[in-house]
């Protein structure tokens, strides 16, 4: 493939650290963009095979997701919940914990926000009501993560399995809550009470972009700074990079584990809340956008870097908004976006492997 970049020479003695750093950044860039281009080519071949012009498909995706005024506004709005989810995943993955229960936590947060916000706005000023909804949405999602967190922290039970199981339970519970407990008696469709548009998060300027986007950006940047600049973040990274070193260094690993899950799930809950309070206004029964799993590849592509994650979340939004309308026009299934993203991920992993082998053989 086109990825095997001989530009970096890991074993040569560093002449100057600046040049080495520049080479390193160049290498990183090539190792990230190369596979994406290769993946676009492979996905194009698949489109050709099913009889769709890949250039037309990519053209629609770009036009609808990026270049049309309405499209870009939708894309930026879609980013808000994705950024919160990405922030939560960055915390978990950097600490070496696989919180794959994002969807359950997201939906429970969404339902909590949808149920509480219409009540709170009648009791208190709108801004306070929204803050309260955000907080209890986060709290509910945190509580939902407690079971996997305690099992992992104190019993060493694999969190991949427990979080996935909890996400099934979580999505079902969210549905039950919508249908039985928080159902709006005023409509025939099973859904929660709708938050009036004027009480939702304000839109930015004269666009349809939600101000939740700013909250999402703030969340992911704060998470990035906490993980890279603070003692707390370093402790989490030590747990993630070498759990035995964490024990050796005297860190309270079980407590940190619970904290990681709480933060990660809390951010997923906030993602649900920001989508409801900012955009949707209510939760319909059986609504599950499955953002949680879609964001995972973006976070990996960004290598758990907050700033890079913003870029990849943007890319994911463009692909999903553009993919939705391209799907309608060209008859490609909606899920082709996911196919594209997974091809990118596989090619990236291959590139990483080839690069690693290449470096090893140079060293040997």
């Amino acid at each position, binding site marked *: 493939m086109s990825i095997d970049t001989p530009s970096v020479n890991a074993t040569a003695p560093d002449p100057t*650290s600046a040049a080495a750093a520049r080479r390193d950044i160049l290498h990183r860039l090539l190792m990230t963009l190369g596979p994406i281009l290769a993946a676009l080519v492979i996905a194009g071949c698949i489109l050709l095979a099913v009889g769709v012009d890949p250039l037309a498909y990519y053209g629609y995706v770009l036009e609808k997701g990026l270049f049309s005024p309405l499209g870009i506004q939708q894309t930026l709005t879609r980013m808000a919940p994705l950024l919160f989810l990405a922030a939560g995943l960055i915390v978990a993955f950097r600490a070496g914990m696989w919180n794959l229960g994002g969807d359950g936590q997201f939906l429970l947060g969404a339902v909590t926000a949808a149920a509480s916000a219409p009540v709170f706005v009648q009791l208190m000023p709108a801004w306070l009501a929204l803050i309260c909804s955000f907080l209890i949405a986060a709290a509910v999602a945190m509580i939902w993560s407690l079971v996997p967190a305690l099992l992992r922290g104190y019993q060493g039970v694999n969190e991949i399995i427990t979080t996935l199981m909890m996400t099934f339970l979580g999505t079902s519970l969210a549905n039950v809550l919508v249908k039985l407990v928080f159902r709006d008696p005023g409509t025939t469709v099973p859904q929660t009470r709708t938050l009036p548009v004027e009480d939702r998060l304000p839109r930015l300027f004269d666009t349809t972009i939600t101000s939740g986007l700013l909250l999402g950006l703030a969340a992911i940047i704060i998470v990035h700074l906490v993980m890279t600049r*603070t003692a707390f973040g*370093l402790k989490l990274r030590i747990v993630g*990079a070498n759990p*035995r*070193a964490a*024990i*050796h260094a*005297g860190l309270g690993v079980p407590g940190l584990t619970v904290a990681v899950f709480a933060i990660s799930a809390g951010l997923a809950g906030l993602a649900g809340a920001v989508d409801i309070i900012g955009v949707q206004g209510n939760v319909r029964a059986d609504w599950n956008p499955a953002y949680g799993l879609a964001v995972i590849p973006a976070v990996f592509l960004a290598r758990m870097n907050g700033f890079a994650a913003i870029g990849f979340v943007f890319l994911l939004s463009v692909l999903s908004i553009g993919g939705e309308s391209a799907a309608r026009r060209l008859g490609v299934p909606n899920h082709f976006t996911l196919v594209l993203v997974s091809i990118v991920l596989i090619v990236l992993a291959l590139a990483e492997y080839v690069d690693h082998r290449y470096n090893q053989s140079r060293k040997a």
Partner: protein
Amino acid sequence: MFLRLWAFMGSLSSLPGADTCDIVALAGVTKRFPGIVANDSIDLSIRPGEVHVLLGENGAGKSTLIGMLSGLLQPDEGRILVDGKVTQITSPRHALALGIGTVFQHMMLVPALSVAENLLLGGPWWQRPRIEALEARVAKITRSLGITVKLHARVSELSLGEQQQVEILRAMVRNSRLLILDESTSMLTPKGIDELGTLMRRLVKQGLAIVFITHKLKEAAAFGDRISVLKLGRKVGEIPPERFRALGEQEIISQIVDLMFGKQKDDPEAVERPIRKVSVEAAPLLQVTDLAAAPTDNAPGLSSISFDIRPGEILGIAGIDGNGQKQLAEALAGQRVTTGGSVRLEGTAIEMLSVGERRQRGLRYLTDDRLGEGTVGTFPVSINFFLKQVGAPPFWRNGFEQRAEIDKRAAQLVREYDVRTPSLKTPVARLSGGNIQKVLLARELAEGAKVVIFNKPTYGLDLANTLASRQRICATAARGLAVLLISTDLEELLSMCDRIAVIASGALVGTVENVDDARTRVGRLMIGLAA
């Protein structure tokens, strides 16, 4: 000089033609790994009808030697002769084809499959397994050896001893002429060990050659015909069958003890122990009384551990590796739950405190697992200096990292401890073992240390770094700190310690003042004899 001559004679005797009865012979075989010489020009002759015992402590180079015989590793220098011909054993499959079967230390059977299925593994994939032929063959072999093997039982239902018989049987089914048993008794019950011994005797009676690796002297004397002793990668002696038969068990054991623990004339590491004055009246800095911990699946528990260390004193812990040394260090540092006993630092009990609190009070633990738990390999050198102080001022203020303070102090430590690193940002795993050890030394000996536990501080280091580390440890004691030095290298302990305690099966079996006859007394304690 004597050694050289001896090695020369050894290589003469294993030249083709000189000794035609060797199945396999090693001539001057050397194997190096980064930073260590695992085998240093080893000569060995393996003959049919003999149990050749390889004795040595952990790290003596036994496993490397077996790796080369079974085709897993290739020697850097020297030759391996099979049936008198120079042969390169390129792979485990090749070794099997040559008739060299190996039973590894850890069981290599598939527990979910039946015994017969395990025996048939590795056959040609395009053929149906020939169970009937196997049954007939196994029946013939087991009858001649006087053992019974349940062919249709699942391996997971067998005891460890039975599993081992299956592994030996597997080697026999494949027509092995040389059977290598790597630490085969380490997981067996005393009864299982006796049975294995009987089985080995029957096998050699049928003309098989056996290489039996162990570090238990009694087994060596009971089951062997010929004994070779390895020490730090070198073969330091051999007892041939003629001499073996002439001596009684006790005499053999005492000869081996001499070989294993005797002082070598040309040992470059030998240093004179500096005379330190340890005042006897001074109150002990560290007092440990009846410390106990529960055993786990793969580690012995601790029991009746009691000792104290005065300021400026080095107490050594000697013992064969895997007898609870690591558990002792972890229990003292607070990483392992204890079930009883007390640990007092300057008179205050600390056994209930956490790892961090114990460190705060001046108890430092320098781990032997430098990359596994001592450092985070992907993190820069600078952060690894402060891994145990995350969040503490002046390196963190209000939880925020003070990059300048960290780099300043790290640069200072790099200079002070002579850490050779391309930069402070270099991931610590890229450094050599010796430089990683310097990072750990700098971290543990920094301000506030009162008692320092060194666990195998020179393990795997080259000579220069070994000497530097030892100097650091002696300087630590000279500063008036109490030092607990855990090591499997007896020379090291003898050259540095004031007293040496011996650990066996998780208990301290005796403490010896490091005076004239300490070497033999510690050696005898280590192999389970009274000092």
